């Protein structure tokens, strides 16, 4: 990397790292230290091919997602990310208000597997179509669909308020093909 490339790299990091850090934080379930490590690893990879990247941001996002899923594979015994401390809801008396629900959702998201969470971030935060998710994460569209399905079923189990009928049903969350997100 020559001086000019290094200058452009530093400018890029200054401009885009907040947005990339947001994605990394969601991928790590709110663990900002892990998110910073993840982003730094991706940036170190980008340095190696900086002069050849047409779209550095797209490359970095792909590395972030793939790196995170690869990390999950390496640490396959540690399937759930450390749950970050989350702020308590202000209005406890209204336990199903929107603010409380969003906090419950964060806790639930943090308890998903890395892969499940990555799918949901791509689908619901990045608005990627299924085929793009499959390409980014290196899996089939069918796997994207089934993993998303299970992730959503697990969220519904963890946040029962999402589904008023859930309390009366016998859940087999995470495995049941009949669980749907409605």
């Amino acid at each position, binding site marked *: *990397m020559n001086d000019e490339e*290094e200058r452009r*790299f*530093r400018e890029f*990091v*200054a401009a885009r*790292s*907040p947005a990339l*850090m*947001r994605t990394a*934080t*969601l991928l790590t379930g*709110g663990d*900002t230290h892990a998110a*910073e490590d993840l*982003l*730094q690893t991706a*940036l*170190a990879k980008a*340095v*190696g091919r900086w002069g050849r990247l047409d779209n550095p941001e797209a490359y970095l996002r792909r590395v972030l997602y*793939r790196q995170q*899923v*690869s990390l999950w*594979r390496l640490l*396959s015994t540690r399937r759930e990310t450390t749950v970050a401390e989350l702020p308590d809801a202000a209005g406890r008396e209204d336990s199903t208000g*929107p603010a409380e*629900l*969003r906090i419950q*959702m*964060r806790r639930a*998201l943090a308890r998903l597997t890395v892969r499940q969470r990555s799918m*949901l*971030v791509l689908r*619901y*935060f990045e*608005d990627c*179509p*299924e*085929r793009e998710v499959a390409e980014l994460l*290196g899996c*089939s*569209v*069918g*796997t994207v*669909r*089934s*993993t*998303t*399905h299970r992730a*959503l079923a697990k*969220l*519904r189990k963890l946040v029962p308020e*999402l*589904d008023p009928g859930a309390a009366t049903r016998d859940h087999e969350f995470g495995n049941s*093909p*009949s669980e*749907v*997100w*409605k």
Partner: protein
Amino acid sequence: MNADRLLRDTLREWAEETPPPPGPDLASRALLRRRRRRATSLTVAAAAFALLAGGVAVPVLAQSDQPVHSGPGSLIDNTVSAHPRESPPRHLIAAGDVAVSAYQSDWKTQTQDGVERTTYTWYVYDRGTKRYEKTRWGWLDVAPGMRQAAVLEKTLPASRVGILDLDTGKVTKWIPLARKAGGVQWSPDGKRLVVTTYRGYPDVETSARDRFTPHARTGYYLVDVDSGRKEYRPMGVDTGDSSVGAGRIDVRWSRDGTLLVVPTPPGGAMETWYDLDGQASEKAPSYEGSDAAPSGLSPDGRYYTVGDGWTATVKETRTHRTVSGSSGSMTLAWADNGRLVRWECRPDRGCTRGMGERLVLTDPAGRSRVPLTGYRYDDSPREWEPLITRR
């Protein structure tokens, strides 16, 4: 609040609260890390050169506990044909009872009116030229025995299914279909076909439900190949919140040929099983599900594989115990009672499906590994997806 909306809002709000990273430090640390890594690589290279210059014999890291020949293109023994430098393969890839009979490659995706349409090119192994040859078919499946294939013409959905003789390259029979077909699969005994029908071109993806419907699955035919007799069963696809997206959702056979699995039927289930008379059946064993490892039960029934669509593990049928060392990339087929064909990731890096992995032949415990193909992507920019068939 709508659950879908709540999930989006939660993710957005969470992202917005993320503290900014230490900007200048982040760039400097990434640069430093890269320089250190480069320095380490150079040191290793220099050390290797010094060893070679000094005439010191360096043992190569073994890929297997047992000696195997895995040259640039090789017939390892009577049962294994491997080409570890070819990706996609040009020459026959086979092991034990199974072979890569065909593969898909050359993906082309076009977007029009918010609908992504992907086309594939199929390559089939030709016994005459002893190579995989490009075909003109829109979709195909090779029959067990690799003597014939069921083919659909390029413009999917097709109004007939052909039976292709793989020795002569000629279609010996056309079976007309009143409903147009997008997918086909042979039964394990090679006597019947399940042909999935679609309203429009099946390999599409869109986030707009109204644009997906004109391409959706409509049902399937069960076809007796010899007599040409066929039976049609309407079977649409779930269009609820959980299923909008990709078009192709083919009906397929269970490994023993007694059941058919219909993924995402109307009503929101992931899959429903039917017997050959069209009656809904009890759920099949866990190794048969839509997301299970394709390898399933070993021929002698001693082992079975479980997977999650990404990784797979071998278990003992009698005890349900995991075979030590068996967890890893996806298992695709049993070559015989004691060997599996599976994907294997390049060990020095993270890899994902379609990138940085190759086909290997391995024992259930993963001790012996014979490379069958080159690494996908790394050895060639062309992505490919194998079709593995009993030979």
